[in-house]
């Protein structure tokens, strides 16, 4: 049986689920950011993803790459702060990799996330262990690649990647931040989850819950 593909409807459901999850976790993300940052992460992400959903409804004509690009541009112009450009880059880079595709295979999705990750690394000059959103994204990409090598189902691979993202997010707690605002706290940044890692986990969890279901 061929691996299940991801169609445009799934991407729309995913983006909508992202917005719902961010909205539901707005105070939680804000609280995480207040502890080691400036307390705007939840509000900014919520504003951004609400705008993404508005664009969705206006753009019934868009294909998958256009949807991803529109999400990226919208986040860039509505989120602000560090996460605006970073999540914007995430979607823009992913869009480039799937150019021309009407449906995505698991391999496409992996390539997209990898491009997204590289984009974030280039934009933010951070690496794994710096206590950033990368600490949730990188293990998720790795888990997807491992799963794909083992011919998992698309749904199973996505579930594994969400699981790895969650572990990666949790692992940011003891870390001392080396990038972003939290790094100013030095040792005092340890003992708190990174808010960007938490939001990244929410997006990847939403992917697992929507991309491979009809």
């Amino acid at each position, binding site marked *: 049986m061929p691996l299940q593909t991801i169609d445009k409807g799934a991407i729309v459901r995913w983006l909508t689920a992202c917005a719902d999850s961010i909205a539901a976790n707005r105070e939680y993300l804000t609280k995480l950011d207040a502890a080691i940052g*400036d307390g*705007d992460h939840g509000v900014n992400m919520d504003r951004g993803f609400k705008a993404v959903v508005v664009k969705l409804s206006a753009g019934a004509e868009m294909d998958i790459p256009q949807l991803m690009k529109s999400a990226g541009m919208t986040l860039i112009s509505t989120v602000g702060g*560090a996460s*605006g450009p970073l999540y914007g880059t995430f979607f823009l880079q992913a869009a480039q990799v799937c150019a021309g595709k009407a449906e995505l295979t698991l391999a496409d999705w992996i390539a997209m996330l990898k491009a997204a990750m590289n984009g974030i690394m280039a934009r933010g000059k951070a690496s794994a262990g710096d206590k950033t959103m990368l600490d949730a994204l990188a293990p998720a990409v790795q888990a997807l690649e491992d799963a794909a090598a083992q011919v998992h189902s698309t749904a199973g691979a996505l579930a594994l990647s969400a699981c790895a993202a969650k572990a990666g997010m949790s692992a940011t707690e003891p870390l001392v931040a080396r990038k972003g605002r939290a790094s100013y706290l030095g040792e005092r940044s340890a003992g708190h989850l990174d808010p960007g890692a938490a939001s990244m986990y929410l997006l990847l969890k939403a992917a697992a819950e929507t991309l491979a279901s009809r």
Partner: protein
Amino acid sequence: MKKLINRAEDVVRESLEGFAAAHADLIRVNFEPAYVARRDAPVNGKVGVVSGGGSGHEPLHSGYVGMGMLDAACPGSIFSSPTPDQMLEASKAVDGGAGILHIIKNYTGDQMNFEMAAELGRAEGLEIDSAVIDDDVAVTDSLYTAGRRGVGLTVLAEKITGAAAEERRSLKEVANICRQVNSWGRSMGMALTSCTVPHIGHPMFDLPENEMEIGIGIHGEPGRKRLPIQSADEITAMLMEPVIQDLPYRAGDRVLLFVNGMGGTPLSELYIVYRQALSIAKGHRLNVERSFVGSYITSLEMAGCSITLLKLDDTLIRLWDAPVKTPALRWGI
């Protein structure tokens, strides 16, 4: 939450509306995307000086838009960097044909958003250079952090850079003046209280009645360390000594001494700090040739202060003294 606001999500827009109406003689405000530009922009043949950053630091940056200082400022949400489209539109609106300088406080978000704006602007044919302000000596191990924060020096840099642009210097020269200011200036701040971001609704951190934070930034973040409250003279020494040691400022240096309030501290207390800062500067045989005291870069209603030293030469003094006509800073005209 003790604030004169309506809905939390309307704070920045409504404040900007009031600002636009109160200062229509000096500036005009664009709302979609949000930026403040000097009324007579673009000024032909002049480098356009553009800055911006999160709101909540008023009068920074919007209050400094006008003749002799900024051509445009982009206000973000409270404590959040603005977005590239704001910076792009602001840059286009003030492009007088001599190029655009972006003055960027060194925060990850500000850096990346301005970077994207510059990429977009260059793609549209704008000539854009940038200068980064990172004067906060509280961030000591800057190799393992996002680098030093941009704090009090930003105000001085915007004034001096704006004056250089007003002299019709080239983009390269204007950018270099700004970089010189950055390399000659150092700051450090402290907080007696936290501050409350409207959409959060409670103080960013708890600071017991007898404690203070030393080494804070301007975003309600806790600082480097928490200590029992001490006298103004002791606190001033705690800020001045690291600042002086950092550059370091040396005997005989000519300096500007800037004591800044974080928003909730009365002017009278800033002068008490200034008094001791001056005495410490004199103890190091620095020649304080210019003074600046007031709440010019704030952190909402936080109580506390920061101290900035800027080394001066004849050029910087001339540019500092040059006329400026903005909502929040005005002299010589």
